[in-house]
């Protein structure tokens, strides 16, 4: 694998940057703040004895909702060895939290803490990319919860995006936060597979997103019998 200075246009840097994106969304993401990689400026990778590989990246990220760009420095470590171990990420970005979304978060929280019927939505966005404006915060929540999974599952040989939030359903809870059951579809670019995950997660303006449970759903391989079965 690429070692030393990385070409920012090439996939090793790009995949590492995507991991930083997932990390930033788990830390700073909100129904009103979603972070995406804008540009990788420079990067470096090196082997760490026999334990794994370390990356350093300089990149710009974009707050997708407000379309503001911030620069970041990040360090990643992809462990080697038996079993799927998640990467370790450290990142610092300039002023990511600058734009004030507290009012919007509070309004969303209050509305769904006190609603008479629990919300439920499917196919965010739908096959044509449509999504009701009211449902966008839940699409974002599904993406944020998925970011924990995408972060955990990432290696130097993967590149994850959320393909769709298939279902997000609010659950009753005695606690202060809101609680959701969620089914999302992840697109893994290298294998081109669509991977289904189910999650139980909570959210509040104070706590952000916390994933309580997650489970990968088995691949529904297509079974069609050929006409000439023997």
């Amino acid at each position: 694998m690429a070692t030393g200075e990385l070409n920012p246009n090439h996939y090793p840097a790009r995949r590492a940057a995507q991991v930083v994106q997932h990390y930033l969304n788990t830390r700073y993401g909100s129904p009103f703040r979603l972070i995406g990689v804008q540009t990788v400026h420079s990067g470096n990778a090196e082997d760490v004895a026999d334990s794994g590989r370390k990356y350093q990246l300089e990149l710009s990220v974009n707050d997708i909702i407000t379309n503001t760009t911030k620069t970041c420095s990040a360090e990643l470590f992809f462990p080697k060895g038996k079993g799927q171990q998640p990467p370790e990420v450290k990142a610092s970005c300039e002023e990511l939290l600058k734009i004030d979304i507290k009012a919007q978060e509070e309004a969303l929280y209050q509305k769904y803490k006190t609603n008479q019927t629990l919300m439920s939505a499917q196919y965010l966005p739908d096959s044509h990319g449509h999504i009701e404006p009211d449902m966008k915060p839940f699409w974002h929540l599904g993406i944020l919860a998925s970011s924990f999974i995408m972060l955990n599952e990432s290696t130097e040989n993967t590149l994850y995006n959320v393909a769709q939030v298939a279902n997000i359903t609010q659950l009753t809870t005695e606690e202060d936060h809101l609680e959701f059951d969620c089914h999302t579809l992840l697109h893994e670019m290298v294998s081109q597979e669509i991977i289904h995950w189910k999650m139980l997660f909570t959210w509040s303006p104070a706590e952000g997103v916390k994933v309580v449970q997650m489970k990968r759903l088995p691949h529904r391989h297509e079974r069609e019998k050929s006409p000439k079965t023997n």
Partner: protein
Amino acid sequence: MEMHSYPIYDWINRTAQDNPRRVKAILIGSSYEKRPLYVLKLSFNDRPNRKAMWIDCGIHAREWISPAFCLWFVHHSLSFYQQNSEITRILDSMDVYVLPVMNPDGYKYTWTARRWWRKNRSISKSGFCVGVDLNRNFDVDWGIKGSSQNPCEEINCGPFPESEPEAQAVANFLRRHKDTVQLYITIHSYSQMFIFPYSYTFDQAENHNDLLEMVQEAAQRIKRYYRNTYTYGPGAATLYPCSGGSDDWAYKLGIKYSFTFELQDRGEYGFLLPPSHISGACNEALLAVKTIAVKVLEKTQAPANHHTI
């Protein structure tokens, strides 16, 4: 015009009928489920010894913006010929072959059954799983990298090169026309990338610097006019190493300007690009096609043919 409608065949027929002097529909073969594969030949004048370019769309079923782009390109050519100087120059100098949907069986399947389908719909010998990734089925270092013999996987390369009727139809056509086709472009989504050979190896293509210069200019113009970012580079290093791709195959055939375009977006909507984004995505791709086609003309036209203004 309605972009994401399934009856693309109606559109193909109507376009050819309404523009009989400039558009001809050529049947190049049929799909596994026996749908016709039509290429539209755009021929805007009849200068002798004309060269050609080829654009194919819809090789991967779920990438809906791709067939939309082929329709957009044809529409732009018909509407802006002699109004837009770049498209006029291109169409005056070259014929354009446009294959709007290389994988109509898969495309239909994404509308009627499973939105995430990628491959064609051919049933494997075992009958257990369906579909071959047409962009792993071409005869270039087939089956070695970034592909799978497992018929259940998304990057299944099939039982042998050109096993799939869709890939075979395209390959046969390009083999017959390899002396006239100078530029090959295949349209995909998503990632916002322009890639060129090779994907099957990290070795550099013979005209790597020319190809790099072309995609770099395309990306720069998109940045300037649309403020959007596209990355670019040779396939293996930029996206991932993989064998059996149509762009590498076309290049090895002798079409020395060969590109894969990955259109919008970069993962936010991914394959589910909404209608509001279609014109932006298509305009960006159009700018890239025109930029590269003009550069190909500059590199391939003999000095005697240069027109001075």
